[in-house]
């Protein structure tokens, strides 16, 4: 027993290697204290031995100043077979820098990080949190990961979050002299380079960085803080060699990894000919095969094997009729190939509004794969993991961003199409009658188009009638109502649209007080958004979504009422969009039209003020009401 005890204490001594008082809060420069947490000392050391071998050693100490900094106090390390975790430990110090507790690998909990939608993945996570609550306190962690492939070379983000200051942070990479490393700096000076005979070292340092806040409607966080992105010229992944020197070379790597996996089974080949041989145009053939793919497969995520980068072959999909984005894309390309149509896989970073991309920095920036069919005048893009999507429609998930085409001649970066504010249209017409109690019975017909149809499309397609019914009975922004009828119809075109028809009675929608009747004619489309802060804006204003809403409302009011207060017509024009309202009352009927066009774009930081004024105007107008008085 005695021996073991000695061993353990030696180990702890090693893991908390710093002389304690160093972490006393008194040593933190004053300017850095306006924060929730301060990075005291962070050190990432990467030693590259060869194209397929490197180690990462990460030590950092972080002082948590208040409970809002708690979210940074834990450690979560993701690892897998290609990045095995070699060592991990941690310590806790009080405000004076006195050590309170040490933890070792066995104190960390270990779990699978498989996402719920995934059938199988290799990834695991080790995590720990001290859950301390006497502020300030300091946590210190160290871990070491073996990087079995430079494909996964880490980047450097020294400012780990908003309201976090940095006292000292270092990032160093040592590598053989003949090895070429590419990097891209944001808001940081170039690295200090030291060279010896066989080796060189690049080192970045950040000191005394004062905490900043993140701002709404701005560019991705890392562009406003010091950041270093890295990518190796040459790397090795399992038995494959690749290069990130250019997009073309990176594309070649993916191509090599996945080539020769496009063989279909004979029955499926036959099916392709049976379906397409008689069709005249290429477009018809593509559409037919896309439908066939949609009807005969489903999306199941299986992220195993070579870093989740190598596809299951087409035969696998023929037999099992499921696959992940790579397998289904590969299957689609194989179908097209059988029909003599050229198509390429395209790697992309998918996600609603996730359009940020480092175009001038070839590296693995992707999380998804789609298919590109290069047609003469009209390139067609196919999303293969969604069995309901309209042919050729990409939507907010993959539109308006670069994608890397994987061809036999290497990779080519191209941009996917953008949907305009005219295409992202929601147009609604409401016709109703107010009865003597103030209840409004109305028919609501809405056409949703392009990106504006995505939510309602998915909601109504993916849920049962009972659920859609329940949703509609609760989710309209009317105080209280009965839903009488509903109906959806779909136009699955390249710019898809959904038509929604509802009949409801909105109870007490018009408020009656004595002889007066109050009504807000904008029934279903008021702007409720909370507005961003306009003070001390530092980053450019980025508006990503562009769309148009048109609402026309026709409401008949009971007899014998005269207008007491009405709504003024409004017409606003701004660089961010236009907004107009027209209102008239004819034969006891309110005729109200609202048109709102919102543009996308990048604007200087100062634009936030006029942008918010624009939204406030819209909010105010949207809430405006008409007052009628009963004729005596």
């Amino acid at each position: 027993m005695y021996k073991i005890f000695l061993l353990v204490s030696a180990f702890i001594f090693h893991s908390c290697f710093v002389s304690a008082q160093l972490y006393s809060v008194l040593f933190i420069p004053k300017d850095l204290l306006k924060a929730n947490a301060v990075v005291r000392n962070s050190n990432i050391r990467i030693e590259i031995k060869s194209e397929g071998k490197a180690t990462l050693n990460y030590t950092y100490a972080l002082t948590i100043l208040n409970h809002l900094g708690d979210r940074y106090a834990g450690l979560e390390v993701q690892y897998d077979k290609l990045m095995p975790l070699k060592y991990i430990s941690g310590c806790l110090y009080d405000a004076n820098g006195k050590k309170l507790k040490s933890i070792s690998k066995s104190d960390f909990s270990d779990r699978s990080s498989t996402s719920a939608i995934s059938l199988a993945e290799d990834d695991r996570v080790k995590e720990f949190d001290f859950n301390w609550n006497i502020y300030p306190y300091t946590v210190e962690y160290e871990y070491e990961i073996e990087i079995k492939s430079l494909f996964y070379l880490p980047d450097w983000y020294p400012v780990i979050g908003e309201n976090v200051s940095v006292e000292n942070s270092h990032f160093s990479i040592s590598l053989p002299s003949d090895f070429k490393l590419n990097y891209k700096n944001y808001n940081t000076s170039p690295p200090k380079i030291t060279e010896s005979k066989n080796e060189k070292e690049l080192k970045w340092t950040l000191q005394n960085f004062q905490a900043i806040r993140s701002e709404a409607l701005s560019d991705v966080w890392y562009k406003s803080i010091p950041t270093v992105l890295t990518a190796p010229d040459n790397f090795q992944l399992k038995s494959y060699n690749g290069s990130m020197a250019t997009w073309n070379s990176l594309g070649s790597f993916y191509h090599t990894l996945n080539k020769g996996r496009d063989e279909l089974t004979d029955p499926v080949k036959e099916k392709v000919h049976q379906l397409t041989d008689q069709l005249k145009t290429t477009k018809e053939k593509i559409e037919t095969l896309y439908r066939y793919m949609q009807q005969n497969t489903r999306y199941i995520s299986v992220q195993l094997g070579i870093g989740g980068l190598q596809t299951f072959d087409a035969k696998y999909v023929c037999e099992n009729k499921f696959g992940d984005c790579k397998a289904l894309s590969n299957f689609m390309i194989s179908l097209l190939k059988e029909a003599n149509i050229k198509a390429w896989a395209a790697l992309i970073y998918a996600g609603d509004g996730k359009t940020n991309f480092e175009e001038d920095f070839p590296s693995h920036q992707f999380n998804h794969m789609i298919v590109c069919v290069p047609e003469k005048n009209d390139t067609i893009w196919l999303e293969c993991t969604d069995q309901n999507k309209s042919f050729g429609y990409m939507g907010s998930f993959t539109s308006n961003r670069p994608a890397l085409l994987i061809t036999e001649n290497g990779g080519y970066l191209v941009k996917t199409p953008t949907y305009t504010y005219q295409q992202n249209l929601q147009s609604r017409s409401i016709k109703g009658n107010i009865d003597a109690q103030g209840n409004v019975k109305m028919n609501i017909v809405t056409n949703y188009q392009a990106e504006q149809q995505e939510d309602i499309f998915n909601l109504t397609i993916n849920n049962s009638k009972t659920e859609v019914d329940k949703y509609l009975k609760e989710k309209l922004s009317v105080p209280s109502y009965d839903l009488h009828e509903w109906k959806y119809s779909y136009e699955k075109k390249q710019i898809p649209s959904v038509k929604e028809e509802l009949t409801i009675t909105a109870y007490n929608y018009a408020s009656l007080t004595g002889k007066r009747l109050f009504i807000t004619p904008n029934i279903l489309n008021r702007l409720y958004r909370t507005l961003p802060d306009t003070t001390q804006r530092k980053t450019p204003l980025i508006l990503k979504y562009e769309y148009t809403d048109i609402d026309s409302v026709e409401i008949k009011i009971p007899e014998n009422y005269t207008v007491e207060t009405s709504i003024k017509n409004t017409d606003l024009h701004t660089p961010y969009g236009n907004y107009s309202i027209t209102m008239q009352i004819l034969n006891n009927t309110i005729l109200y039209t609202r048109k709102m066009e919102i543009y996308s774009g990048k604007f200087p930081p100062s634009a936030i003020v006029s942008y918010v004024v624009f939204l406030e105007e819209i909010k105010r107008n949207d809430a405006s009401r008409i007052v009628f008085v009963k004729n005596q």
Partner: protein
Amino acid sequence: MMLKIVFLCTLISTYTVAFTQKQSDIKFGRVETSDFAVENIKADTSYGGVIIAEIGKSYFDGNTDGWFTLIHEVKKRIYIVNKKGFDLATVAVYLYQTKKNNNTEEKLESLKATTYNLVNGKIEETKLDKDLVFKENINENYVLKKFTMPAVKEGSIIEYSYTIKSVFLFNLQPWDFQGPYPKIWSEYSVQMPEAFDYITLTKGYLPFHSIESKTKKTNYLISQATENTNGTTTGFERRSNINYESLDKIAKWVVKDAPALKEENFTTSLKNHISRIEFQQSGINIPGSEYKSVMRSWNALSKDLMGDYRFGEDVFSNNKWIESSWMPTPGAITLNDAIKTFHYVQNSIKHNGKRGMYRSQSLKETFQNKSGNTADINLLLTMMLNKQGFTVNPVILSTRSHGIVNETYPLLFQYNYVICKLILNNKTYYLDATGPHRSFNYLPQYCYNGSGRSIHLDLPSIEQIKADSSIEEKFTNVMLMLDEKKSNNWTGSLQTSFGNMEAENTREIMASNGLSNFQKKITASYPAEITTNDFVFSNLDSNEKELTLKYNISIDNNNADIIYFSPMLKEAITENYFKSQERQYPVEMPFKIHETYMLKLFIPEGYIVDELPKSERVNLENNDGMFEYLVRKNADDIDIRVIIKLNKATFPVEDYETLRAFFDLVVKKEAEQIVFKKK
């Protein structure tokens, strides 16, 4: 106007069914062409998938380790109507495991899975590739085996069957007769040797189509390797065999045509409503040996828990170690002293976000690590109060999402949370120190869920911890006087004292976002002509005192000819809480409600009151609730008082329509305006 709850007494003509179908007419493994016709599926197909038949069977077998193995067989036939039903094609089987006893785990065996598709009038079969069964270690007690059916598309029929073999006899598998997809035939049977007693718990509202129970003579062969007398094994294995003859009990339950079931607002837990059957081992009765009760009485269970190192151990001991950092004043056992200790624990020990009934560490570790799960914290509190000399004991309960407990049985798995009960001067207090902003004698919302159980060495008793015992009282007072400079504008203040739950939430929001953000949010919620400033909270840091918020309001009437004024300002209920026209389950709110709003409004100079809402009062029957709107016009001002009361937290589903109508009325009334006109 008087709202009434109308009870419709429908006369249900009862009739006897001459013949009840006892077997599913599905022949597994034999799919016919006609089975693919969606019009033959007698269920709501809009969910995208239908369980045509599922049959489960649990029984016992003698094993070679001298004991019994539990065998659970499942087979299912599912029709995939369309893409919405694809989820049904991915199957997850949870298997219990333990690191003790040489890593014993339940085994998944005899997995067969086939997809049937109708292709050009012919049935095509595709079998599951066994390589595509994935294993995932969830935690130290569960392994997950996952597979997805091959060749599934719209119109596929899938069938799978598997067996789970388990040596954990307590884990007699439960059965859900209802789920997120409709089920046409769901059948479960259990055969148990007379040696084993299990309690059966049934839940939900669906009637059983049939219940059968019978007995059957069964032979069990149990064998065991025997050791030599000196405890060593030789090269020859010697086995001893026992032939055990039992009069087995067999029970079989069938539910037909179970509709799909999904979550609704204001319900505690779907678990309380789903049709389900579950089991708890209660006793073992081996011939020739004494009856061994597995299910213990509450007295015995309490004793166990009190000695359990994960629960009561050390809670009532002296715990001298604590005295170096925390020393109670001797003899200090007034309510104030208890509150002080409560505050000490809630402020010094941080809740790590995990809930549970069992401790994750020793009391000392909780104290030193300054963090722990809910049991760590509340049992430490119990310990400290006890050390001080208070009469305390732990109370276990089931949180809302965990379902309501069946009081009849002393079954621990029904409980998942522990709080501290204090009795002082004949008054009972329930304490939960897991949140820094919680008041003494208030529990988090999720604890108000029917009955709990006092864990006590001598007197374990039922504790009623019902939502009906918690009341959310809010009081708002608004005073709007005439502006000294511009006498047709208003200036004044709004003051609110929050109910307890809202106070806790508000304290939490203030702690994480700060006053300026809070202020911004409120300011933004008023229309442009109303400005607010000088926000002041009182008692933000003292959880035991009423939290109040006060701010100033000024309203610019812009010298308009007509002024329309919403007397409720932003305190009006603008949307019915119960929007949906219909509802399947009872309304289960976490508390009763009592809100009062008062306004004193001066009449702007140069204006007359042209329109004023009328006084009104509505009662719910049986004094279940009321809404009162009183208006009084004086010479220079107007007084309004609005009260909403709900005197119950739980309403049966029959009352839903009434409740909805009640809130319609509230919304309507609170939207009314006062109109002033220039003289």
